[in-house]
């Protein structure tokens, strides 16, 4: 019986943290449905007096944010699809195929992760300028196509694939690429789903690099467009909130739909080492 106070205390604390976590999202959603000017009235109200979609209409019709939404979707989908192919090939090779220098190359890759991406940014920009990739989607996509953490994730998972299975396929005369395509790729599915979600969310949310590469506002991804919008529309709180909802909605939905795979993948790095 003396458990009751502890039970209530713990749930109360959990509840308070949950409210603090959700409140910014709830206010964002609520303010996005307010008529223009209502979020900056005194006394302020939490809920819209007359909910309206006019802010969302303005985003799509007047500000052409629908285009930026498609830009973001293109960048995130294409970079995820290509990264899946590149990372699964490399991760599988580092785990299961014997070749000279394998462990040395792999260790060098892991060590390189200490170098922050910012060190490469200025030279990379000059390089992209030389090859004409500044202000293109490919300039955003290509430099991020071989993330080392993805290779690490796939390798850790691929280590558990049974060697007998691969050997049996070899004895049957299958080539190495056929083995990868027909046997390994399907077996890696769970980890590839996890990595795919990671990659999509990362690409969708990325800000600094697209900000540097994209100079034409018709090519902006949503985060860049939103950061740009606040320069001119800082007073239009309701409009900015609608833009924020539009930006976070796809990743939030994806996370809620696939949260189990996502969270499991997250703990791999910390626990398995």
């Amino acid at each position: 019986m003396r458990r009751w106070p502890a039970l209530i205390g713990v749930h109360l604390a959990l509840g308070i943290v949950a409210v603090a976590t959700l409140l910014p999202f709830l206010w964002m959603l609520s303010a996005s449905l307010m008529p223009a000017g209502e979020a900056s009235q005194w006394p302020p109200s939490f809920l819209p007096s007359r909910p309206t979609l006019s802010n969302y209409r303005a985003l799509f019709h007047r500000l052409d944010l629908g285009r930026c939404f498609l830009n973001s979707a293109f960048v995130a989908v294409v970079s995820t699809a290509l990264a899946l192919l590149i990372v699964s090939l490399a991760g599988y090779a580092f785990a299961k195929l014997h070749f000279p220098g394998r462990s040395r190359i792999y260790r060098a890759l892991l060590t390189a992760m200490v170098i922050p991406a910012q060190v490469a940014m200025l030279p990379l920009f000059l390089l992209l300028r030389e090859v004409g990739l500044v202000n293109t989607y490919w300039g955003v996509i290509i430099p991020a196509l071989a993330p080392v953490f993805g290779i690490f994730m796939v390798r850790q998972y691929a280590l558990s694939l049974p060697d007998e299975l691969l050997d049996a396929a070899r004895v049957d005369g299958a080539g190495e690429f056929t083995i990868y395509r027909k046997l390994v790729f399907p077996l890696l599915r769970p980890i590839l789903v996890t990595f795919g979600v990671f990659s999509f969310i990362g690409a969708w949310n990325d800000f600094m690099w697209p900000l540097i590469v994209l100079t034409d506002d018709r090519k902006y991804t949503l985060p860049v467009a939103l950061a740009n919008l606040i320069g001119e529309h800082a007073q239009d709180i309701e409009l900015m909130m609608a833009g924020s909802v539009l930006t976070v909605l796809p990743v939030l939905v994806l996370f809620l739909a696939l949260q189990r795979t996502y969270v499991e993948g997250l703990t791999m790095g910390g626990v398995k080492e």
Partner: protein
Amino acid sequence: MSAAGGYRSSRSRREARAGLAFITPALALIAVFFVVPVVVGFLLAATDFDIYAVGDLATARFVGLGNFAALFHDPVFWKALGNTFYFVLVGGPLSVAVSLAAALLVNARLVRFKGLFRTVYFAPVVTTMVAVAVVWRYLYHPRFGLLNQLLALGGLGPVNWLGDPRWAMPAVILMAVWKNFGYNMIIFVAGLQSVPATIYEAARVDGAGPWRQFRHLTLPALRPMLVFVGVITMVGYFQLFTEPYVMTNGGGPLNATLSIVMYMYKQGFRWWNIGFGAAVALVLFLIILAGTLVQLRLQKGRE
């Protein structure tokens, strides 16, 4: 040589060729788009590469350590460095502490709806930083902001969160902790679940209270996760950029939230002082490297 041996060696040669072929796309991309730029970055940092050199490479000159000398004489650089350390040294430990507390709460034996709480706490992690920074900019509004309204209920405030140089960095820290504590929490929860419940039962039978259980069972079990979380959080916090870009118009007020990365961005990409910007990036790298080594060394020393 036996037929089987010949077969095996030709097979292993085929396997080696396939292995090298499979890692080639990844290695080529990393070499061209990361290794080469990093090396060039080191070289650029020793030149006065600027907007004219972008047009005509021949105008760039070798200046040796000149950029670093100029950097160390620039008070704005020291301001940015100080701000970044403020953010890392206050925000980092705060984030880890909140994550650990949240993990202990969520993982407590009596708790119902564990999955639900975990999901809620994790939601800010996956959401777009630019968007939540926009939202928090308004939450911090001195007059209409939700935060000051809540403070007013308690008779406090109003605080000019993002307009007052003393409060701007605490405001950025609060938002950053809100955004990322769920990430570390998940890692701590995984660590907690790897500790068998029977150990705790044995400790209880021996009369160990909650604090002693935490101190002598939970913390040692979490040691590997603490190292991982400590390094990851520190590295991430050193790269502060988006929050000041969106919330304080690039590092205001009075440079109170100007970070090292923001300083590099302005020098390199806004004013095209590319050699100088590359030197700033190099300093950031050295600091992160030193911080990582110190954390790993500290953990090793304690074992």
